[in-house]
């Protein structure tokens, strides 16, 4: 048998101690895996949904609220802005593209977003069925919406007022499904997308009493916000300030706001990370005690190995291999545990395609887990190995029983 095989046997010769150590190490490594995966998922989701949007222009209020409501679709918007003001932005040479976003209605909790087809192009969405709208009251469904509501091409439905399910229904205005998107992985999976004009039409028809009224409403058309792409990165210096000081709107940079958000979440993850570190430290201590006892209990066996001609280094290697076996088994268990936690969390919170991507992920940062396992095990093995090196073979062999 090889050194590794002997180490494996010796490890499991004391199954209770070995199991306890695997359990403790796995819990620590599992928590670490969980934290790394969750932050990776969140960053991925943000990266995906924020990609290519340099700044968001909308009603004055909290800039983070603007980003959360208009880009990530997690919050309600701070208010509306006049369509004319948004259109005026197009004249600014720093602006390459403007995508309007109009919010206000929902379909069984899924937001109906009035926008332009550039919104679909921006997210590189592909159609699974049908086509993009070419007239008001035609909609394209995100993959999750189509699947969970069981809607297909040609079906009609009425939206409800508000952004959550349960508002009053605009019964007289039916939308028609003309397209269904392929699963994308980003926020658009959960959206119902239509032309901006649809949103106006629904509300103007609901509120206008006569033609004159209607004309007045048309003149006052609003959008909720506009996603802006710059012509040059230098625009980031001047454009937001220009919007904030010279218009009645505010400009919020997604990158800044998300960094701020992650920083706030970061305080929470720091605590969790410290907790995982504490678990790992405890596990390391337990491994240390187990190895220390193993060396004490097996002092005679180890001395006999010296007597059989094994150099002290080979015995040190045997003990180190035991510790590394523990690390390997625990790292595998910990990684499995962490992945299971993340999948479980996604399932419990129903976060499918929102913050948790489906399936298993292996971000590079996850290599920290096996590395930590090896580090803890080796750290715990140092003193016992040193003790084995120091043991007095002569004295041990004199031990009578």
């Amino acid at each position, binding site marked *: 048998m090889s050194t590794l095989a002997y180490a494996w046997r010796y490890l499991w*010769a004391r199954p209770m101690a070995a199991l306890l150590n695997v359990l403790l190490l796995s819990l620590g490594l599992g928590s670490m895996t969980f934290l790394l995966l969750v932050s990776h998922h969140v960053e991925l989701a943000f990266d995906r949904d924020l990609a290519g949007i340099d700044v968001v222009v909308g009603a004055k209020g909290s800039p983070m609220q603007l980003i959360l409501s208009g880009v990530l679709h997690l919050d309600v918007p701070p208010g509306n802005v006049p369509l004319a003001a948004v259109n005026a932005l197009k004249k600014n040479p720093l602006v390459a593209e403007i995508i309007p976003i109009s919010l206000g209605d929902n379909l069984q909790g899924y937001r109906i977003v009035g926008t332009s087809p550039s919104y679909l192009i921006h997210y590189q969405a592909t159609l699974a069925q049908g086509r993009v709208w070419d007239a008001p009251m035609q909609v394209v469904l995100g993959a999750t919406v189509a699947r969970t509501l069981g809607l297909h091409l040609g079906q009609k439905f009425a939206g409800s007022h508000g952004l959550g399910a349960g508002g009053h229904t605009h019964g007289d205005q039916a939308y028609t499904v003309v397209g269904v998107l392929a699963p994308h992985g980003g926020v658009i999976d959960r959206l119902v997308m239509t032309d901006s004009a649809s949103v106006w039409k629904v509300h103007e028809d609901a509120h206008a009493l006569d033609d004159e009224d209607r004309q007045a409403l048309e003149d006052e058309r609003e959008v909720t916000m506009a996603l802006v792409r710059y012509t040059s990165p230098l625009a980031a210096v001047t454009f937001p300030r220009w919007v904030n000081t010279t218009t009645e709107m505010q400009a919020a940079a997604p990158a800044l706001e998300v960094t701020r958000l992650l920083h706030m979440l970061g305080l929470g993850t720091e605590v969790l990370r410290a907790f995982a570190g504490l678990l790992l430290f405890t596990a390391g201590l337990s491994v240390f005690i187990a190895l220390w006892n193993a060396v004490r209990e097996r002092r005679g066996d180890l001395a006999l190995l010296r*007597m*059989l*001609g*094994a150099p002290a280094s080979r015995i040190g290697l045997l003990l180190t291999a035991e510790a590394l076996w523990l690390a390997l088994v625990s790292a595998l268990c910990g990684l499995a545990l962490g992945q299971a936690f993340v999948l479980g969390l996604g399932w419990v919170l129903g976060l499918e395609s929102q913050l948790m991507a489906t399936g298993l992920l292996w971000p590079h940062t996850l290599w920290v887990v096996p590395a930590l396992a090896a580090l803890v095990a080796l750290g715990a093995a140092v003193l016992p190995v040193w003790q084995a090196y120091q043991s007095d*073979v*002569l004295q041990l*062999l004199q031990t*009578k029983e």
Partner: protein
Amino acid sequence: MIETRQLQFVYGAAPPLLFPDVTVPQGAVVLLSGPSGSGKSTWLALLAALVKPKHGALTVAGQDLRALSGRGADAWRARCIGFLPQKLYLSAALTVQHNLELAFWAAGLPGDTQRVRQVLAQLGVAELAQRLPSQLSGGQAQRVALARAVLMQPLLLLADEPTASLDDAAAQGAVQILVNAAQEYKATLVIATHDARVAQTVSACTAVVPILLHLSPAGSASALSMATGRLQA
């Protein structure tokens, strides 16, 4: 085979242990006796190159043991020394077979399953190969430990109090097995013992070299004197 001249060993701050000059021929049986603390185990450790003498010359099978480096001593021990400790130290985690293969591992050699089976068969315990040490009787365990000691065909077989916990019949049997094994493998046998029954059993052997160690006059530490030089039985 074994030659020592003015051998001395110092253990910590204690007065030095002085050993008698001996010359032991190849294939002889050495009976090493003396009271506790007189240096029996130390003498065995010196022969096994586990420790180095403070002074004096020590040659085993033509090898000057003082000249060996640490690694050299390990390799030499693996190749030339078979050791049967009083406490047998069979690893509880391993089967008999794997306990014996540990000797190959210790020597840095690939395990030779064939050889393990052969030695176990020669000692009449072939059927125990897959058992754990906890499933062995005292006598069986001792045979297994002896098998481990002779596995590498050592030139020198060292046995430390092999009869300490055995009744008369078992003691005689154990020593006989030891002597037979040494003869079979043409090894020089050194038995450290204070058991008179051992002397009786080995008296039939052709070359017996008794060495008697004494406590030093100082009492706690020990010195020696050589009782009888070489004896022909």
